[in-house]
């Protein structure tokens, strides 16, 4: 083939004692890049390209039909005078702030329960994991809407105990608790990761602590928490990023409108409405980039703080 002459010429010129090895390495690299190529092409065409064009569009006024008009930073500055935008930020932040820690707490608690050996363990693990597999689906959002609707099972169940909240779906004060419950219920994915982390903690640490007379609370804070901290860190990061991206359930439960009274106007939902209902793609792109920047900054902050509470084995601290 055409490649072999080049190679032999190069090896002939080289006096180094490692021609064979580097030749081998070059071939490996070529093979590697060849196998990478389909993914790389997809990445450039479907991710990098659209990102660049969306960055460009965020500085324009673009209605999908006519060529984009350059307007500089206008989209970014008008964002902060847009009451609905500010509302969507508020809704999303409260969802992230309350939903994520609760979800992680539930995941950790259940993981610890499932960590001990008992009969039917496999069943329980699958049963708790299942909701997070189907949780983001459209059908679950529909079921959730029906459950929390007027005269739905939740309303009727609560009224047995004399609590009459009515349907949650139409009550602006109750929609956020409903969405937080929905996300907490989908704790399966972080739970599985916690479970794997718990398995890594050597049992003799707990045995030694018991010998020294430590109770379960002491054991949790002095052994489980520090030993598990890299896993907690990972889960916190992933779930925070994930929570910012909530869309499907919000779209379905609020009929794509973000109601009642804007109480479910999540950031991504408003972004979508701006782009595809109001034909303001430039504005929507600006929102998307702002979200990217904010999530990036948050990630950085979490990384920074992690130094003080995340412990890796081998740390001398």
């Amino acid at each position, binding site marked *: 083939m055409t490649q072999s002459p080049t190679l032999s010429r190069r090896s002939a010129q080289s006096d180094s004692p490692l021609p064979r090895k580097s030749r081998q390495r070059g071939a490996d690299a070529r093979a590697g890049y060849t196998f990478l190529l389909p993914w790389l092409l997809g990445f450039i065409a479907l991710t990098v390209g659209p990102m660049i064009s969306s960055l460009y569009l965020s500085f324009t006024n673009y*209605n999908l039909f006519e060529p984009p008009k350059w307007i500089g930073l206008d989209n970014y500055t008008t964002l902060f005078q847009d009451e609905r935008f500010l509302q969507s930020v508020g809704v999303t932040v409260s969802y992230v702030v309350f939903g994520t820690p609760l979800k992680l707490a539930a995941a950790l608690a259940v993981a610890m329960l499932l960590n001990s050996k008992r009969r039917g363990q496999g069943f329980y693990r699958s049963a708790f994991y299942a909701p997070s597999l189907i949780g983001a689906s459209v059908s679950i959002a529909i079921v959730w809407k029906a459950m929390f609707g007027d005269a739905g099972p939740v309303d009727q169940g609560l009224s047995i105990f004399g609590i009459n909240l009515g349907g949650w779906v139409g009550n602006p004060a109750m929609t956020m608790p409903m969405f937080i419950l929905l996300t907490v219920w989908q704790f399966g994915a972080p739970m599985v990761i916690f479970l794997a982390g718990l398995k890594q903690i050597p049992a003799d640490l707990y045995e030694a602590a018991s010998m020294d007379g430590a109770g379960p609370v002491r054991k949790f804070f002095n052994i489980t928490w520090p030993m598990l901290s890299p896993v907690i860190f990972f889960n916190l990061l992933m779930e925070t990023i994930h929570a910012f991206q909530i869309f499907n359930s919000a779209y379905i439960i609020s009929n794509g409108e973000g109601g009642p*009274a804007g109480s479910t106007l999540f950031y991504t939902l408003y972004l979508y409405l701006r782009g595809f209902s109001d034909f303001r793609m430039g504005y929507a792109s600006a929102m998307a980039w702002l979200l990217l920047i904010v999530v990036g900054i948050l990630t950085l902050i979490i990384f920074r703080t992690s130094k003080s509470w995340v412990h890796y084995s081998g740390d001398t601290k």
Partner: protein
Amino acid sequence: MINRRNFLTTVAIGSASAAALAACGQPAPSQTGSADNPVTINYTWWGNDDRAERTRKAIALFEEKNKDIKVNGNFTDFPGYWQKRATEAAGGGLPDVMQWDLSYLRDYGQRNQLLDLSTVKIDTSAFDKSLLPSGQIRGKTYGIPTSTNAFAVYYDPAKLASLGIAEPDGSWTYKEFNTFLAEVGAKGNGALFGSTDYTSVWWMFNIWLRQNNIEAFTEDGKLGFGKDDLKKWWNLTADLRGTPALVSEERVTQLAPKSPFGSNATATEVTWDNYMAGYLADSGAKALKVVPVPSDDPDNLGLFLKPSMLMVASAKTKNKDAAARFIDFMVNDPEVGQIFKTSRGVPASKTQRDGTTFEGADKLVVDYEKSIEQYLKDAPEPPIVGFGTLEASFKRVASDLNYGKLTIDGAADAWFKEAEDLIKQNA
């Protein structure tokens, strides 16, 4: 000798250049089909299963009569419909023929996405002359109305009888209408409310403006009314909000996407008259009736016939003639009228209307439109660019008002801010 690789390269280059040559040839003339080799056109509409079934029948009939054309049908619900069209338009791939709504005609027509239908052969001789302008923008015809609808007050006679309330005759002022709603609410005892807040419906506001001889939009695409008009409008039901006369916004949200009237939560509803079939199916009521909307001026009801739907074609369609023949068939053919009855509205073309037999609920709708004939004014022109957004935000702001999140003044400010921003954006 040709080895395998050379052969493949030759084939690849050959077919690529053939495609390229074909692409740079003269602008493709409208393709024509034959019975053996029919052309295919795409048709899309919004609606529910009932409309899908009727449309399927109409398409089958069309294909039977036009062996050289195949129609590929496809439908979604109303909100998803417009998001899909927006994406397709951006990619230059709108379906050949589409069911259309007046709210979005300007958005697409003015931006050269729709075919000027006066350049193709569609028979409009059987249409009422006052109706056709609603499909026209700046002298070009972008849409042909399939049917008409008019605003009306629906009520359920059985529910009124059970409350001991006399049936209304439809000649009422806003004050009388409010009193009526309050009475239903009082006697309904928490189980049945008067109606949904009618001031949250854009088109009812539009009718009220016409009753007061105010235009909703000016010719240069601006608002024709002021903040005070809007405040006055929302004040009409100020005393009723929070009382059993109007169903609470909480219930309205819970019941969506069904309407409170269709869910038997209210005794009346103010909306388009072609919802009859849908309401009957939703509520399970034996019979529903329609009467005219309230007005403080008995000679000016502000009513008009609106094209309930239009048929449009994509500006980029390769099958202009086939598309035109399909549109012509859907709006004029009497058998299509028999299939749809009044579920699209009352057929707009006289040929189709006369060829359709209306019975029961369908007859009530047709009779209603006849009964208001003397009050009808010209249909409004296609509303301004971005009207779909304005209408949605009207509904949303009114809903915030009903939730008590906004005062009437605050709601008017909020809506005007959005409207002015939108008009500036599209200027």
